[in-house]
Structures are given as C-alpha cells and as structure tokens.
C-alpha cells in the first residue's frame, strides 16, 4: 500500500489504514537509526525546508535528522528572524521557498490552519509540524508508535490526557488518533482548559486528576504554558500543580504498568514530578527517539515511496 496524499496536515482526516501504514513504515526506519551508518538514499536529491514560525528545538531537530537520514538536503528557515519582520505574508514566504524548488515544506506556525493554506496553493508537499491549537500530526504518530511498541494493541487501552486540552494541538491530534485506533480516551483539566463540547470528540472529561487517572494504562501529560497563569486559565502555578501535577502518589491510582508520556519540554515539578518523569514508567525519551523514525516514514511516504 502507498499513501495517496500530497500533504500531512492533520490526523483528523486520516484513515486507520493510513495511520497504520505510517507506523509500519516507521518501524523499518527505526532500524536505520541504530545502524553504524545512519543513512538511506530514499530522498537523495530532494529538498526539505523546515519553515518554523515559532521557536522549536525538538521538533525541528527531529525533522532535520529524519530528512538527513533519508539523504535529503535540508534548509532551516527560521522566520522570526527574517521576512515576517519585514511584513511578508506567509503565502509569499512560502512561494519564495517553493521557487527555490523545495520538495517538502515542514511548517510550524502559531496559527491554526496555516499549513492547510500552503497545501492548497503549493506544489510542494506540506507537513504540519504544529499549527496553533489545531494539530501536530507527527507528534501523535510518534506517540502511537511508542504506545504500540510498549502496549502492542490500541483496542481497549485506557488513556488520560492531562492539562490544557483547549489550546493543545498535541491533545487534539492524539484524541483523533487514539479514538480512531479504538482506545478509550479521557481528558483531564480545569474547565477553563477544556474546550466547549469536548466530549463530542469521543472522549470523557474529568476535572479532578484523581478521578481521571483511576485505572488508566497510559497518562499523557501536556506541558503547562506558564504564561497563561493569572486571570486567564488558572490562578497560579502553585495551585495548578497542587491540582494537576502527576506525583508518585497519584501514579498509584493508574494501572500498575501504566506508562507516562509527555511531548516535552517538561516543567519539572509543575505538571510532572521529577520522580515520575525519571521513573521506569516514563517513556518520554523513547518518544524522542521514535520521533525521528516516524518523521522519516512521513517524508518517505509523502514522496510516493512504495
């Protein structure tokens, strides 16, 4: 099976078969990352442009490594430093990059839907590396990959996603991915961080962390955006931690073999206790490793790889 799409914009419109294809393909690429010579010629002569309108180290580096291990040429285009400050529109920036014959544009943007606009207007394949509060599809794919590695099957798996669901693209992509794959998803957070009608996404909502954690197989912690404290979403970091920090005591409410995930970077002691982040239950670093393999699979499949 091959992928019949030019772009990866989100998980919402992917089929179960497509998700599975990404995961299966990533599996063969994971092996490349542990070789002595970590390179295959799959994308030789292709150009990948990382177009990042938000600061990001982890995702950008992961895409860069993925492209390089596929032998593509990679350009990192950090936008805050260049055209945007001169008033150029997203579309003009992207058209300029495409005029340089880029084959892939990996876009990180603070506004939801930005990759959708580019995908519609450009010939190049567009990969969404996170757009506002919308989606972060490669994050969800690498989370699924990590889960499949550790837990084998998605059916019947009970997960809790904890934190600012309303503003989180990671939460959204994971909700779409996990519910499609048959997992039972809970979202946990204060009502100020749960979007309206969230349960219509096929999840169950909890305000109390203890209730949400009971019996779950996987806990996915979201990074707390510290700048949102005050009148906006929560009164103080202190109270947030008291209510929503994943501590060793709270871990006992989950299934004994429960896994802890986090898209990073973590705020130690805010949403996750250091003992938990560093415990055996934590697969946070596996997520990072798998991220490269998954992004290799994404670039490869979008290029029409068979």
């Amino acid at each position, binding site marked *: 099976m091959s992928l019949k799409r030019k772009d990866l914009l989100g998980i*919402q419109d992917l089929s179960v078969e497509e998700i599975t294809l990404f995961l299966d393909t990533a599996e063969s690429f994971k092996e490349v990352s542990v070789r002595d010579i970590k390179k295959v010629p799959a994308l030789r002569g292709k150009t990948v442009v990382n177009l990042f309108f938000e600061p990001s180290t982890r995702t950008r580096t992961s895409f860069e490594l993925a492209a390089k291990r596929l032998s593509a040429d990679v350009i990192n285009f950090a936008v805050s430093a260049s055209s945007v400050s001169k008033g150029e*529109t*997203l*579309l003009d920036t992207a058209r300029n990059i495409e005029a340089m014959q880029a084959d892939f544009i990996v876009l990180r*943007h603070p*506004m*939801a*839907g*930005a990759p*959708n*606009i580019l995908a519609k207007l450009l010939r190049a394949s567009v990969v969404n590396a996170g*757009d*506002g*509060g*919308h*989606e972060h599809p490669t994050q969800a794919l690498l989370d699924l990959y990590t889960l499949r590695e550790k837990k084998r099957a998605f059916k019947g798996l009970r997960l809790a996603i904890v934190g600012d669901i*309303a*503003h989180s*693209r990671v939460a*959204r992509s994971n909700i779409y991915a996990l519910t499609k794959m048959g997992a039972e998803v809970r979202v946990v957070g204060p009502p100020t961080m749960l*979007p*309206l*009608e*969230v349960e*219509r*996404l096929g999840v169950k909502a909890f305000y109390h962390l203890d209730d949400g954690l009971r019996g779950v197989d996987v806990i996915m912690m979201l990074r707390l955006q510290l700048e949102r404290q005050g009148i906006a979403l929560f009164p103080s970091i202190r109270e947030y931690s008291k209510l929503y920090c994943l501590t060793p005591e709270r871990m006992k409410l989950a299934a004994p073999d429960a896994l802890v995930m986090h898209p990073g970077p973590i705020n130690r002691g805010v949403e996750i206790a250091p003992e938990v982040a560093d415990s055996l239950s934590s697969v946070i670093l596996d997520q990072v490793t798998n991220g490269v393999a998954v992004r290799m699979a994404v670039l490869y499949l979008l290029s029409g790889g068979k």
Partner: protein
Amino acid sequence: MSRRSPHVRPELVEGPTVLIRHGRVIDPGRINGPADVLIEHGKITAVGAGLKASDGVAVIDADGKWVLPGFVDLHVHFREPGFEYKETIATGAAAAVAGGFTSVCCMPNTQPVNDNQSVTEFILEKATAAGLAHVFPIGAITKGSEGKALAEFGDLKQAGCVAVSDDGKPVMNAMVMRRALEYARIFDLPVVDHCECTHLSEGGGMHEGQVATEMGLHGIPSASEDVMVARNLALAELTGGRLHLAHLSTAGSVRMVREAKARGINVTAEACPHHFLLTEEAVREFNTHAKMNPPLRSRTDVEAIKAGLKDGTIDVIATDHAPHAAFEKEREFDSAPFGIVGLETAWGLALVLVEEGVLTVEQVVAALTVQPARAFGLAKGTLAVGADADVTIVDPDAHWVVAPEQFKSKGRNTPFAGWKLKGRVVSTLVGGRVVYP
C-alpha cells in the same frame, strides 16, 4: 424631510417620465398584484391597472417580473475615506444598485472615522458624484469610535447622518451607551450597536462550539453577543432611547429581543443572510470567506434567527456588506479580517426563506424595504404615490449562479460563490432613472 431626500445629482431628480407595465407590484401593506407604475419627475405618480402611456413616455415592460420598492440596506461598509483599495463609495453604490438596493446606510468605521460633519459631507459628495444609490451616512457614537466621548450628534444629524453607531467597535462602557441613548433622543436618532463583549470574544475568529473545538480555533461564544444585547435592552428601557441591534446571530439575542418588544421597549433588529443560511460548519477547511463578526453560529441559532424573522422579532434583513481585498483574505484564518460582501447576493439569498417556507414573498420584501426604512425613519422603501421613484424590478424565476468575479463591488469575499439561486434583480431605478443595468 429635506435632509432625508435623495443624495443624487439634482438633474437626475428631474428624471424622465417612465411607465413600468404588466408587472406584479409588491409594496408590502399596500399592494400585491398586477399593476402598472407611473413615474414623473422622479416621483411615483400613479400605481394601478391599465395606466396609459402618453407620448414620450419611456415604457419598461415588466411582464413576468415583480416590481418592488427599491431595497434599503441599513448596514454597509463602503470603506471610503481611508480604505479605497477595498471599496469606494462609487463601487459600493454600483454593487448596491446591482443588488436592487437603492438606499444604503454606510457605517462610520472609515479612516478618518465619520464622527464629524466634514466626513459626512465628504461621503455625501462622493455619493452624489456616483449618482447611483442613495447613500445615508451613519455617524459614530463616540469620537474616533474609541468608546469614550460622545460625537456631536447634532452636527452629524445636520450634515445628513441618519443614525449613530460605533459598528465593529462595540461600545463597551455601559455608561457611555446610556448617555448615547439618552442624548440621541434630542435628534430622534437610532443608536445602532454591534453587540459583542470584547472581553469574551478576545482572540476569537469563529463561533465557540464543536467545530472550533475540533479545529483548535479560538472561539467567540454566543454569550459575548447575548450579554451585550441584554445590557442594551436594559439601557433602552432605562432611557427610552431608540435602539437598533445590528446583525443578530444567536438564539439568546432573538429570545431577549422578542421579550423586550413584547414589553414595549423601543428596539428594532436586523439579521444578515449568512446568519440565517450558514452555520459554523462553513468554516471547516479554514475558509476565511466564512469569517465574519458576529460569526456563523450553530444550527439552533440559525433556526432561531429564522423564527425571529418569521414572527417579526427581527424587522430587517441587512447585508453587513464588508468588502476586503483578495490578499487580505488569502491568509491564516486568525489573521484574515472579518467580513463578507453581501449587496449583490442578498435578494437571491433572502428568497431562500420563501423557498423554505419561513417567510412569504411579501414578508421578504418588507424586511428589505419598508421595515428598514421605518427603523431609521427614512422616507424610502415604498411605492406610494408621492414617494421617490426608487424601484427594483426582479425576475422571480431567473436561475443564476453566484460568480464573485462579476461583482460590481471591489470585494469578492463571499462564502456563497457557486451557489445556485433563483430570483434575480433585472433592473433598478433611482429617482425614476435606470441605474442598473
């Protein structure tokens, strides 16, 4: 009266004698049936069966057509002065008459804001030069529409403003709104509010509900409109001022206005075609042509707006015609401006309500003519003998497809592109002169 008279070139008022024959005349509350309309010196001089054409009379054959009072739009943005790249008064007026609108009221959010006599006079001069639709300026409620000090309503009225509004920038301070409603009573000016609590809507680009949740877009809750409608109704009750609520979009607004009217509060309200035909679903795929303020809401809200039109809670169909340049809408959803054009689609879209059995033809015509005219006290919207000869002739059976590239407006920003509509404006007369086509 003189200030409410047509702002067209004087020589146009002395128009030719015209006889519109064999049409079905629909002048709500007055006549709905076959009749001829005679126009002399820019006025309607007779309406009735079998009117005779004397020598030198221009005859318009309206066989199979409907002959209606020219439409009146209480809510347009013509962008001039300041944003002529989006629209000018001339292009806006051309769009108006192409859509059957012979009178339009233009919002003051220009640059500079229409908060003083000279801007009002400038707008009227441009409108006169264009010589198409009558343009009635709406003055600002507060200086610079900054929500603080009241603008000089007396001067604005004298210069030709027919209402006051800070449209686009809601009057957030309740005391300022109270004073505006009170002070406007001297001049019997309607105070028009765009009801939006900007604290609740901050950062939002679409309706807050399931679709926004799915798309990860910031929402504008229905409550941001509802709380301001509630506040404004309370202030209208307190002051006895004349309140007009722009573009209602929520079930809550309709419910509150209905209750307020039943208690005799002096309020009128308008709704736009997009708010009774489209829901939040239109935003999917990050469609910036479905981005307007207030936003497209839920199915329940759409049904409530229709019910409000049906039972008369909502008096007026207005367009909120808001042209933007193509490049401004070709952007990230969050950075694209709010607003769509509406003048050239309103009639066809309003007729959908007839198709759906929500309104009768006469009710649709009333919501586009006599009712808006009454809300702002304009001597317009009727074919009564002695009225200005502003007439719109439509072909009720013409099928057409909305093609933005053919618009007279500079704005092409519409979510209705490609819609197949029935019922089209074929001819528009202002002061007895054919201004469209």
